């Protein structure tokens, strides 16, 4: 059964120059134990659709969908109070800028324990024990001492590990990672991706990986959705997407990878988008 099932999601923002449609009729589902990658360039609506699931969009946004089912309940129909019990507990999210998403005024220990207090109602000793266990799990050395560190005392990679620890604190069923490694170095990126995938396998979570990096998709995903300007361009399992992309846009994205450069020039997306589709497929 699908863990998260969204049909026909539309997100519109009220702007000074009229409504702007950021997500235009996207349907997607994630199963348990599955890694879904949503890939697209900036402005493709990939982050906005996931923020809509989390209920984190500002009041200027209007979210509509035929359904947005999570664990048998429609997230758009339940009350805000009920939704707050699910968000952060059963669905957790990791953001792009690890240093900016932590509160600089509190120790990382306080911030991890806050989640445990709010959702699980643990007492002080339990919280501390669990927080140490979590930091150990995400690979931070000397976890007991690090609980008293402030975010600015840790590196970017370590802050991202703390974010992951907070996200998995309540054993979520679904983890949404929004560009989790974009701000990090390649060697750290590799460590964080390995950590996410191993935690996903260990706890049988569903994982949604939002990224613009085709390499990250290739290294982590089971299934891929390609988005462009708020619309879904293509959905395929990872191997067939790379082997035989169906939409023109996906093909353009893949050929714009510097790895695939033929001769001196890189093909660009605009070169490809205006060519007619070879067999009526796609964009």
């Amino acid at each position, binding site marked *: 059964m699908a863990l998260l099932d969204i049909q026909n999601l539309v997100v519109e923002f009220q702007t000074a120059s009229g409504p702007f449609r950021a997500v235009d009729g996207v349907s997607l589902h994630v199963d348990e134990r599955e890694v879904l990658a949503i890939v697209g*360039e900036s402005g493709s609506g990939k982050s906005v659709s996931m923020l809509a699931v989390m209920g984190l969009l500002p009041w200027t946004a209007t979210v509509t969908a035929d359904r947005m089912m999570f664990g048998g309940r429609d997230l758009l129909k339940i009350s805000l109070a009920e939704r707050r019990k699910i968000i952060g507990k059963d669905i957790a999210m990791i953001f792009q800028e690890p240093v900016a998403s932590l509160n600089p005024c509190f120790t990382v220990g306080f911030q991890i324990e806050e989640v445990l207090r709010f959702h699980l109602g643990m007492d002080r000793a339990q919280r501390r024990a669990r927080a140490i266990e979590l930091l150990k799990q995400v690979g931070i050395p000397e976890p007991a001492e690090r609980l008293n560190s402030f975010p600015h005392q840790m590196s970017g990679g370590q802050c991202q590990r703390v974010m992951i620890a907070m996200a998995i604190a309540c054993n979520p069923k679904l983890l949404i990672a929004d560009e989790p490694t974009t701000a990090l170095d*390649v060697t750290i990126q590799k460590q964080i991706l390995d950590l996410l995938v191993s935690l996903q396998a260990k706890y049988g979570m569903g994982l949604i990986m939002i990224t613009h990096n085709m*390499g*990250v998709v290739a290294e982590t995903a089971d299934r891929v959705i390609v988005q462009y300007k708020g619309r879904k361009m293509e959905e395929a399992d990872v191997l067939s997407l790379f082997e035989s992309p169906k939409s023109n846009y996906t093909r353009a994205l893949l050929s714009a990878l*510097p790895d695939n450069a033929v001769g001196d020039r*890189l093909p*660009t997306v605009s070169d490809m988008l205006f060519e007619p589709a070879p067999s009526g497929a796609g964009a």
Partner: protein
Amino acid sequence: MTKVVEGKNIVRDYHVGGGLFRGARTVHAVKGVSFSVEKGKTLAIVGESGCGKSTLARIITLIDPATAGELLIDGNKVDIARDGLTKEMRRKVQIVFQNPYGSLNPRQKIGDVLGEPLLINTDKPAEERRDLAMKMLKKVGLGPEHYNRYPHMFSGGQRQRIAIARALMLNPSLLVLDEPVSALDLSVQAQVLNLLADLQDEFKLTYVFISHDLSVVRYIADEVMVMYFGEAVEYGSRDEVFSDPKHAYTKTLFAATPRADVASIKARLAKKKAA
């Protein structure tokens, strides 16, 4: 072949002042790096954050002086700590920064952005500055209609084109590119890389290209230098470095780079199934 830029044992130390609870200490950002780039070629400098690659870029661009070592530009020794920077030297070396949003003045029109290097460094009249700016706009793929617009009216890729145009206004021989495409989307990145390649051909430009993205480096570089904790741990032609990396750090770097080819996806899926 003439060497446009050459560095011999360049060292840069930063002194961090002590406070009430901490003594002063010295950070060795660049520890004796040597390199040279020939006319019309591209040297790529690769490394992770904190390895000193941007410090080296600032030294080559004559923004910061080196603590020790020699820097030669067009065969002439340059020491800005002792002699200061002449307008002639500023003409020869220009830089494009990583963040196109941060490197343009939001209150300056694009025409003025492009005219400013000429205003400061030459005594060309306003009319001529305007003509040159118009020409340069066309060179980088923008149009005369963009002349009177402000930076916020452009996309990230267009802003990076403007930053490149500004750097080329003085007709430099050496262009330092500090992560010029890492803030851009994949498709826009391809356009900017193509533009850089075209401009290099047209003006016989020499590039020092700083990046952490190995796939970009492989595409654009003639020579590659890998930096790690302030030292050049690997330096050679692109094919040498990519086909036969010698230093352990270079190998780690290659292993960490995500691969987007079908064979490695198959290998990963097979491994996952077995687990």
